[in-house]
């Protein structure tokens, strides 16, 4: 029941032969070494594993590999290598968003995804945008502030 699945990973064409029912999360982590994709709950609740599938934020702990066939995937590794993603990373670093860090790659993906759609979000928009990402350390306030900082700093980037 193995099948060859091809997709775009962080802008690169890749393919792998596997049971298409394998969890996409395991394939990204174990086969492609995308360790920034974190497993926090395995049930779609914590958002630590967040990635972009065709630009939409999804949780690969709940997605079978087969669903990626022919699609485009961006992980935090790919996102943080873009100017927009780097803008989020730098804002997180300057804004005090990071503590233990385990939720943070997922938060970066959420922030990037939000700012791509809405370059000028309100506090409410931001809180909603990261509401699927649990953080046990920060109480969220400085993450929200950091996303605001990324919006301000990256004004032109996001509006592109």
């Amino acid at each position, binding site marked *: 029941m193995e099948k060859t699945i091809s997709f775009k990973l962080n802008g690169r064409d890749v393919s792998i032969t596997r049971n298409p029912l394998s969890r996409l999360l395991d394939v990204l982590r174990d086969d492609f070494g995308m360790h920034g994709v*974190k*497993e926090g709950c395995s049930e779609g609740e914590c958002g630590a594993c967040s990635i972009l599938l065709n630009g939409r934020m999804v949780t690969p702990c709940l997605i079978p590999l087969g669903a990626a066939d022919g699609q485009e995937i961006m992980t935090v590794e790919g996102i943080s290598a873009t100017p927009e993603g780097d803008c989020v990373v730098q804002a997180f670093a300057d804004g005090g968003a990071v503590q233990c860090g*385990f939720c943070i790659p997922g938060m970066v993906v959420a922030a990037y995804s939000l700012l791509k759609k809405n370059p000028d979000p309100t506090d409410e928009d931001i809180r909603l945008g990261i509401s699927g990402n649990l953080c046990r350390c920060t109480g969220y306030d400085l993450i929200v502030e950091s996303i605001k900082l990324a919006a301000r700093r990256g004004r032109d980037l996001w509006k592109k």
Partner: protein
Amino acid sequence: MTTDDISKSVRRIDAVSKSNGSIKYMCDYELPDYLWARLVRSSIPRGTIREIHLPDLPEGYRFVSARDIPAGGQNQLSMIANDWRCFADGDVRYVGETIGILCGPDKTVLEDLYEKIKIDYEEAECAVTIDEGLACKGGAFVNGDNIHCRLKLEKGENVDDVFARADKVVEETVETGYQEHVYLETNAAACKKIGSKYQFLASCQCPFYIRKSVAPILGIKPEDIVVQQTTTGGAFGGKEHFPDVLCGPLLLAAYVTGRGVKIVFDREEDIEFSVKRHPSKVVFKTALDRNGDILAMDSKVYYNVGAYLASSFVVLQRGCFHVAGCYEFPSFRTEGFGVATNTFPSCAFRGFGAPQTLFAVETHMCHIAEMYGRDPLELKSKYFIKQGGVTSTNGRVVERVMIPEMLEQVLVASDYCRKAREYKPGSGRGIGISFYNHGGAFTGNGESAIIKARFRLKKYKDGHVELFCGQTEMGQGFHTILPKIAAHVLEIPREMVIFDDPNTDRVPDSGPTAASRSTMIVGYLCEKAAKLAKERYKTEDEFEIETQYEHPEGYPWDQSSFQGYAYIGYGWGVCAVEVEVDPCTGEVTTLGVWSSHDCGRLIDELIVHGQTNGGIMQGLGWASTEVLDNVKGHFKQTSISDYIIPTSMDYPKQECFYVDNPYQWGPSGAKGMGELVFNGSAAAYIDALSRAIGKRISSIPCPTERVMDLMLHGEGLDSALNAAH
């Protein structure tokens, strides 16, 4: 950049690598030649093991248990007490007790074999709650009375004499529930014999604890074990002693198989089978005069310790030392009891026993005030302890207590006085306020008698300085703070200071990363070393300096009677919370959260701010949605979808204030603060909520369903507390 103003924020050294996903946590190490392992655990709370039926194990798979412990080894985890067994042997005492460890090369095969293990038990009746433990349900299994540990403290005139002449003596019981840590990174560790030593990789707070705890299993010396901490994705006390419970079996498995062995918990396993915050029950008996002023306060503090004592006596002590809150009562007595039950042993969780009793005393004070139609703030204000005030252990408060200044900041920002007046009880809106403290570092002479922290600084030829100590980074920012302290003294750029995740073979034992002691104690040792190094830095190429903890003179402590200066520096806090309650659904909306803290001088504004936000929010979760039930020894909530922690939508942006109150024995005047910021928000939230619904609330958590129930059936705020008998 040199850091001239210590409070000015710097970029955390781990911020970028954590944001772009490049930093490695334990689960990110590939370790391809290691075996996977899974702990085989008891599925009943109490009974005897009749037989373990193992499936046929293919070549390369192994089941390791107590029987495999070599001669000279001991079946125990040496925590603070040594009673927690590495493996259940003969009998089991709680659900989840480790019986064996199954290991093998393929994770899927391992899982399959694991499912096929069947264990026959002879089940016995179990005790789960504090009351059942005290009643010795099923027969006592610890000390003949199920009391693991106890202590008693008294101060001032004998409380019984005061009770005899008081206008009124009231009684009230305040209870708190379990709390799960939910560090986002689950527990994980690996062990392999490399050369002559067993080498651990572990997500943990205290690498030296692991060494000491597991070495006796093989009858080897702690020095025969090396523990390398890996980047730790949150801990909050949940990785203080608990990693020992994984590492003990891993060590034996590595010994038996001669292979590397690794474990990564999944979330369900981590919630179901890990330590929790102690559930508590505090029974107050308080003597009042005609106006409702407090003449004496007596309390009995019960903590649900679970099946093994481990670190719980120290937790109970801290609980009892904090049950007088920020107050000085004319007469005071407390007795603490650590109760044995057939539940997963309770252990450290941010606050280490203090949050339970602080919640209890704050709530009890509110209820006394309300019974007399007084504002809780007015009653509480009468008893604030001051510098020189006598503490519950008959020591004195050494530092200036800035509660009045902190209160002022919170009152102004929250508009408490107007709101407290205008929001009538039961009106659907309420504001509440709480006061709290946290004794910094180990109790009494613990730092000098037990921990004896050592610290090393080394200067290299190229000008770099390296710091050596066992303190771990678990999110709190210590790996940024410590180099900052050294750079500040040496007046060199922070980038010139190296500080790696600790490896027990490379660093001196500076004590655990716990008890809010890292900045206050080890940070101070670092500052001292840097001061000694300053002159030599310019003239000498390469040198090392060691510093060692010295207890300030004149603050005696007697650990046998718990008398004297329990803490020489406290953190202090004031928190106000405002809520609105939907009268139809009982749903609570938090409208505002204001706090002020005294943690000496801020060691880094942004890091302190982040700790405050996170600590306050964990406290709010504990008070409201974080329901964790234990039914017949099994935790009922076993996933993040059942156990509800706060999301970004649940609470508004916090307003945080600080006072500057430099501490004489802290680096640049800083004190501990990681636990302090957890200690007060629950009481403020419950005060606000009870005013909003006009009903007394004496236990947490209080989720929506309970709010609804209280609105319909609860006791009014002004109703009299029970008279004591």
